[in-house]
């Protein structure tokens, strides 16, 4: 099976003396069972040999056997020609130092103590260190850049620091050979590079030979003289120079990244453009080339980090272009948000694209956001493709799967092209997440798919904007760098003249023009995702509307309308005590009704809400919160993990969860007349329903229909409805706030409420004006390849 380099293959027993280490017909494993057979390795003095292969291939087992810590199952390891099994451990220790991945409890040992154990073979019986030893320890520490940690307690170091100290320990042993098991595993990128340089220097200076295992192909390429490839099923597949190993697709094969799946993905592309270069696996195929007749122009906005303000910039650009008379649509291939919007067709998409579509003056469509990930646990998400639920996936599964979604993305783009002149694409997070770059479909990968020029946005408000922009560019490869056509400094406050010299240098160093310095804006627009500041603030005003912040809260933009009103505070509360100063308690929708009901019980909210309700104060439950207000929630079909849970029993309802998802836009009238909100009767609502399962009334005499079509019930001051967006109609908000202020005995003028929609329109215009003032729109039009007609 092994295809050894001819040069490496020549060795035999006699030649073994020239080798620092060589193995013969070595099989390694545990308890006499061989995991890897027939290993013929050799390390020449002054050379670095690297083992690579997937996790669990047995790299560590080989290293341990070579280091003499594990007995060979069969065969021999030779150290400078001598059989390892015939050497005493002190003889071995003068030839070879070892660094392993295993960790220990060093208690109070300082780094100096740890490294000085490497001097074991030099010290006296009592282990006293002489001057030479101290010097060797110090210089080893300096070598790995850990000298300043000398007096620090080893156990308190970070993993990366520990790794450096352990390496120093091996160096302090001053042996001609070192065996290092994943010496860079915990290091950050700069220390990895430093380690590579240092190790090369050490090998060169002292003619040391090194056998190591590593996971970073880039570093192995830089560092190793010979690469040994071990496959998943424990075979030494190839031993060769890094140049040869890293040529072609071999690595993908080794790490089981099946090229077959590549074909599956790009097969779609290839059929469209036979000329595409399948070998590079880059979606060099772009729609523009394949369809030269298309007039649709693309522009992409990417950020240096999440929250850099991409969404609003895209919205603003959409509005500017709309004002200039173009048909423009927003697009984001993949969104991750708890908060989804349901289109008229009953399909789910991210809220951010809905907001951008509003700015563009068009109806939102799932093609603007073909992939939506809704996190429903710490490690997994519900994957929604083109509006429909595909299933739940763990992050890792999704990472593997996502390349299969490229056709869906292209399909969505095609659909947008049919209707619009311009598509403004939003990236996600940062394009320079070098661990996730493979098979990227949201940032540069997306830009390449449609051959879009890229504007890169940095956030000056969070500081380090120059480093953000230049650093991001620096981490891109050449093709990607060429795509970046403009830089934007976003969220700037203060005097721009101070910034100007920096901008000049930025343009010079980044070799990309700065397309604008956009000021910090306070806009009353909906947030994109759950990563917002809104949960942190807690303010008291004349009227306090307190929303119970359930752990799996969803669709929280339901209540945004309250934030637009003066003297009304919308608070998300996590402690039952905060119910005390609430004028209205809202139990919001949730992705996991049963789980959140249990949380209510455990957190003491159940008792808090019961007390609050017994005082006759108002509660409104929306969707999941509505289900929670009922008597029980049953899950016979294991939609949320099965079982049943008792609800708050404030309404005589019983909910049975089912796997079928209700999903529709609804409108109707409030039919109920109970409690302080009785004046709502007859008012029109519009919104949408999205839930799994059905709720039925168990005791029709006890509660009255609240919203029509039996979609909600009320009893006294307890109200519940399935309708999301219930508060969006001006009349309903006005009545609710009026009733609340009357209860509290304070005056309230209905004129203060600006209907949500009007307000948003004003905000979009304001955003567009700002972009026109502070951005180089000429450049934007140039990038789009259209002259600016208006100006």
């Amino acid at each position, binding site marked *: 099976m092994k295809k050894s380099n001819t040069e490496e293959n020549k060795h035999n027993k006699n030649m073994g003396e020239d080798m620092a280490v060589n193995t013969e017909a070595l099989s390694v494993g545990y308890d006499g069972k061989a995991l890897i057979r027939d290993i013929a390795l050799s390390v020449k003095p002054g050379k670095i040999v690297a083992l690579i292969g997937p996790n669990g291939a047995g790299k560590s087992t080989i290293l*341990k056997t070579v*280091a*003499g*810590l594990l007995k060979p199952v069969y065969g021999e390891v030779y150290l400078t020609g001598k059989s390892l099994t015939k050497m*005493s*451990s*002190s*003889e*071995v*220790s*003068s030839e*070879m*130092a*070892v660094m*392993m991945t*295993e960790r*220990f*409890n*060093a*208690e*109070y*040992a*300082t780094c100096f*103590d*740890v490294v000085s*154990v*490497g001097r*074991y*073979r030099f*010290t006296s*019986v*009592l*282990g006293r260190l002489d001057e030479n030893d101290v010097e060797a320890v110090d210089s080893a520490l300096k070598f790995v850049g850990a000298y300043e940690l000398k007096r620090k307690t080893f156990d308190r170091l970070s993993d990366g620091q520990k790794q450096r100290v352990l390496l120093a320990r091996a160096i302090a*042993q001053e042996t001609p050979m070192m065996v290092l098991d994943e010496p860079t595993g915990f290091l950050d990128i700069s220390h990895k590079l430093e380690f590579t340089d240092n190790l090369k220097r050490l090998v060169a200076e002292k003619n040391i030979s090194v056998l190591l295992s590593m996971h970073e192909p880039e570093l192995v390429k830089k560092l190793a003289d010979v690469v040994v490839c071990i496959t998943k099923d424990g075979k030494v597949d190839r031993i060769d120079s890094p140049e040869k190993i890293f040529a072609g697709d071999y690595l993908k094969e080794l790490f089981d990244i099946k090229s077959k799946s590549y074909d599956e993905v790009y097969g779609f592309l290839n059929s469209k453009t036979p000329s595409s270069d399948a070998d590079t696996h880059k979606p060099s195929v772009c729609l523009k080339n394949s369809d030269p007749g298309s007039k649709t122009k693309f522009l992409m906005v990417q950020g240096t980090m999440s929250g850099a303000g991409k969404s609003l910039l895209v919205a603003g650009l959409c509005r500017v272009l709309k004002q200039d008379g173009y048909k423009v649509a927003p697009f984001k291939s993949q969104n991750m948000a708890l908060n989804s919007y349901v289109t008229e067709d009953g399909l789910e998409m991210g809220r951010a694209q809905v907001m951008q579509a509003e700015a563009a003056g068009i109806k939102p469509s799932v093609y603007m956001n073909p992939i939506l990930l809704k996190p429903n646990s710490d490690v997994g998400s519900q994957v929604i493709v083109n509006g429909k639920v595909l299933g739940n996936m763990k992050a890792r599964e999704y990472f593997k799967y996502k390349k299969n979604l490229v056709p869906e993305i292209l399909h969505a783009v095609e659909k947008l092209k049919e209707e619009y002149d311009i598509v403004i694409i939003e990236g996600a997070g940062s394009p320079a997440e070098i661990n996730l770059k493979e098979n990227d479909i949201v940032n540069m990968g997306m830009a390449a798919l449609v051959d879009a020029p890229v504007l890169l946005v940095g956030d000056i408000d969070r500081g380090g904007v120059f480093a953000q922009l230049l650093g991001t560019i620096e981490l891109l490869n050449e093709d990607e760098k060429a795509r970046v056509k403009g830089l934007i400094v976003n969220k700037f406050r203060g005097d721009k003249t101070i910034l100007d010299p920096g901008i000049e240098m930025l343009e010079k160093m980044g070799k990309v023009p700065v397309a604008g310095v956009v000021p910090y804006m306070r806009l009353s627009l909906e947030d994109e995702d759950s990563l917002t500041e809104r949960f942190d603030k807690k303010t008291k005003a004349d009227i306090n509307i307190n929303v119970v912040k359930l752990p799996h809260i969803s669709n929280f933009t339901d209540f945004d309308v309250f934030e637009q009103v003066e003297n009304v505070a919308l608070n998300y509360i996590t402690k039952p005590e905060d119910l005390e100063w609430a004028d209205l308690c809202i139990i919001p929708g949730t992705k996991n009704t049963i789980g959140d009901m249990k949380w209510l019980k455990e957190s003491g909210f159940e008792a808090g809400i019961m007390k609050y309700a017994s005082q006759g104060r108002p509660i409104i439950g929306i969707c999941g919160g509505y289900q929670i207000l009922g008597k029980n929630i049953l899950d016979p079909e294991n939609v949320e993990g099965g079982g049943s849970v008792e609800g708050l029993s404030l309404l005589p309802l019983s909910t049975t969860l089912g796997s079928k998802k209700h999903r529709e836009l609804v409108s109707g009238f409030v039919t109920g007349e109970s409690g302080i909100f009785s004046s709502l009767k007859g008012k029109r609502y519009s919104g949408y329903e999205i839930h799994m399962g059905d709720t039925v009334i168990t005791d029709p005499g006890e509660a009255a229909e609240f919203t029509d079509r039996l979609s909600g019930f009320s009893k006294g001051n307890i109200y519940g409805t399935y309708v999301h967006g219930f508060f969006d109609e001006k009349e309903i908000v006005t009545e609710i706030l009026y009733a609340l202020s009357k209860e509290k005995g304070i005056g309230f003028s209905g004129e203060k409420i600006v209907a949500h929609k009007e307000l948003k329109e004003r905000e979009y215009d304001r955003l567009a004006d700002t972009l026109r003032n502070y951005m180089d729109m000429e450049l934007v039009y140039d990038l789009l390849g259209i002259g600016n007609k208006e100006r």
Partner: protein
Amino acid sequence: MKLRRTLAFSVLIILIFILVLINFSVGSVDIKGSDIVKLLLNRDTTSVQGAVLINIRIPRVIEAMLLGGCLALSGYLLQAFFANPIAGPFVLGISSGAKLVVACLMVMGSEFGFGISSGMMVSASFVGALLATGFVIAAAGKVKNMSVLIVCGIMIGYIASAVTEVLVTFADDYNIVNLHNWSLGTFSSSSWQEIKIVVIITILGVFTSLFLSKQIEAYLFGENYAKSVGMNVRVFRICLILVSSFLSATVTAFAGPVSFVGIAVPHVIRRLLKTSKQRSIIMGAFLGGAVVCLFCDLLARALFAPMELSISTVTAVFGAPVVIGMMLNKKRA
């Protein structure tokens, strides 16, 4: 760091000095400080006070001090061996194992009418300690979990105690009293003859431990690393377990099983010294053990004088909370 160690050692030595003096003077017969010097200088064994001091209290104090030190040291070596801070001769059942074999010897001695010398006691105890240690090491090979290991040790201890009880039930009345007292642990039988043997064993034990300190230091970071720096791990482990068993066997032979000193003292000393320098810890553990046993023996003797408590009763009161604290701390970490 240096200062901390110097300070800690000074405090330990001063404590020993003070405790020795108090031990000399307090008891069912009170002896004034000034009288102690006089009695010692005159080697006066004719007066009651002189006889009490020289024939009873001084040997007892020396024995409590040395055996206490040995016990703590033995515990520390076991902890290094098992890489487990809760190891100790008492919890691992080693003391009980030693007790069992010594009990056999004593019963046999009275049945067949032969006298038992200190040397025989120590040897029998050593055999018992090694047997119990063997069981624990076998268990440790199977389970890596620290709590399970301790439970195994405690079970071994119970089995050994149960067998001892059986022996006691079938022994003559006279022997039962003797055995019962001894099996609870006490320094009350100390005599000048014993002291010689104790001193020799102590010196041997402490010195071998000091010579093992370099290896212990390397072994702290795991067997593989120890091996890779050139240590013969197998020989080291054998040495370590022999020295440790020998020390705890000696203590058991002379004073019976004494609880918790072996665990609690090394732990407190490590916290106190905050170092991984094995020489310091070994010396510190020895001095610490001496302090604790002097103090506990004083309480055992003086608290309800003329009645005497068993030494384990007193050490448990102080030691067990320390061990509980350690376990809670471990959980959090």
